[in-house]
């Protein structure tokens, strides 16, 4: 298309750019708009450059480490909500994949042993077989108890500790910042301390967030374990019914054969 003639009277490239960004005098704008109705080349180029601009919108910089810091545009409450929402916004398939991964690792760590024998389906966990409490008999009433209470306590303790550290650091930072009559070096030190403090707080928030995510995963693991157990029970019932049916058919067949003889 570049070989198509353009009869625009003026600096075509600059006017095209000014028109596209709508940073142009009204008279120039009207003149170029009129030109566009007759010039295929300019119309095509304008369309293509707009497509490039559309592509540019897809390039976002990474979230900086200081992202968790509050700002006028993103108050602290909104940041907390956004962090929680960002985890909820992870698609179900990704959450399921993560849950299955954790489940697999947990099963490996717990030495999960599934055995199907004459006693029915037996699930055993733990490295020491001498602990009967770890054995789950699927034929009986199932009671999966997770050790989530200490985990929650740990998480709550961690959260309390981090929040108290933030509060104390805030209180410590303010008096330092309030003095403003010191020398330039002093001022530079203050700003550096402020930035370092902010980074430290960011790391603490990250630790808290990781703790929260682990908690969510733990809850998902508990739900998955219960679901798997129910599914295994259903499979066992189906298998038992199938065996009964086959036995009945076999007995029926044998009795018919004996009658014919």
């Amino acid at each position, binding site marked *: 298309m570049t070989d198509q003639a353009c009869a625009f009277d003026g600096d075509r490239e600059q006017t095209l750019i000014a028109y596209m960004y709508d940073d142009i005098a009204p008279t120039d704008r009207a003149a170029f708009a009129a030109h566009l109705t007759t010039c295929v080349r300019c119309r095509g180029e304008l369309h293509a*450059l707009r497509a490039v*601009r559309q*592509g*540019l919108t*897809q390039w976002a*910089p990474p979230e900086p480490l200081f992202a968790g810091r509050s700002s006028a545009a993103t108050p602290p409450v909104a940041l907390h909500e956004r962090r929680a929402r960002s985890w909820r916004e*992870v698609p179900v398939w990704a959450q399921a994949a993560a849950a299955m991964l954790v489940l697999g690792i947990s099963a490996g760590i717990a030495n999960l042993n599934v055995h199907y024998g004459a006693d029915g389906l037996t699930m055993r966990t733990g490295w020491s077989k001498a602990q009967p409490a770890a054995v789950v008999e699927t034929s009986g009433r199932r009671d999966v108890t997770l050790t989530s209470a200490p985990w929650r306590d740990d998480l709550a303790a961690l959260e309390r500790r981090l929040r108290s550290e933030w509060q104390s650091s805030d209180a410590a930072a303010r008096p330092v910042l309030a003095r403003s009559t010191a020398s330039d070096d002093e*001022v530079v030190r203050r700003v*550096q301390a402020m930035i370092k403090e902010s980074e430290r707080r960011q790391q603490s928030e990250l630790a808290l967030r990781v703790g929260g995510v682990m908690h969510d995963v733990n809850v998902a693991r508990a739900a998955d374990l219960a679901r798997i157990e129910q599914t295994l029970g259903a499979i066992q019932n189906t298998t038992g019914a199938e065996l009964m049916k086959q036995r009945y058919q076999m007995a029926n067949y044998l009795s018919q054969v004996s009658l014919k003889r």
Partner: protein
Amino acid sequence: MTWTDEELVARSIRGDADSFNELILRWERPIFALAYRQIGREEDARDVCQETFLRAYRALSGFRGQAKFSSWLYRIALNLCRDWIRRERRTPVVQAPEDIDLVDLAAAQEPSESIEDLVARHDLSRAVERAMALLPEEQRTAIVLKEYHGLTFQEIADLVGCPLSTVKTRLYQGLTVLRRELAKNGRVETNL
């Protein structure tokens, strides 16, 4: 009450350190984004961002308000980016990994977006980043300031110290290079 940048600057000069903290909170993301798009390295962009505010704080008493505070900050950051590029003697790098991390990718998924659309968006972002890294510094700066920071031609011209017509020419040339590079990968139309 929300203070303007200039009011916060005036309060900072009078000794209210919280006001300067507010300015940092207000502008650290745009300055980081500018630095990242100029030099392409997250850690270095963070350093540039930090150094920008340090220099601004040191020179705060000299800020007379002839220009907007944001323009003043942009100028400091751009000078630091230019120093970085000269010191490192290299063009911006494309830092993103080759492989797609599905979990990271999924976190960026829009609620109504399919996986195919998400991957296509990710690929386009990478293609844009690579193409931008190919541009000369002046063209890249003009595009970044116009596209991502919404500055007018005149503001860009004042910031980088060149005629207004030069800004438009740089934008045209830069966008044309991007168009060609993106067309190679089938990202935009090829009817050049």
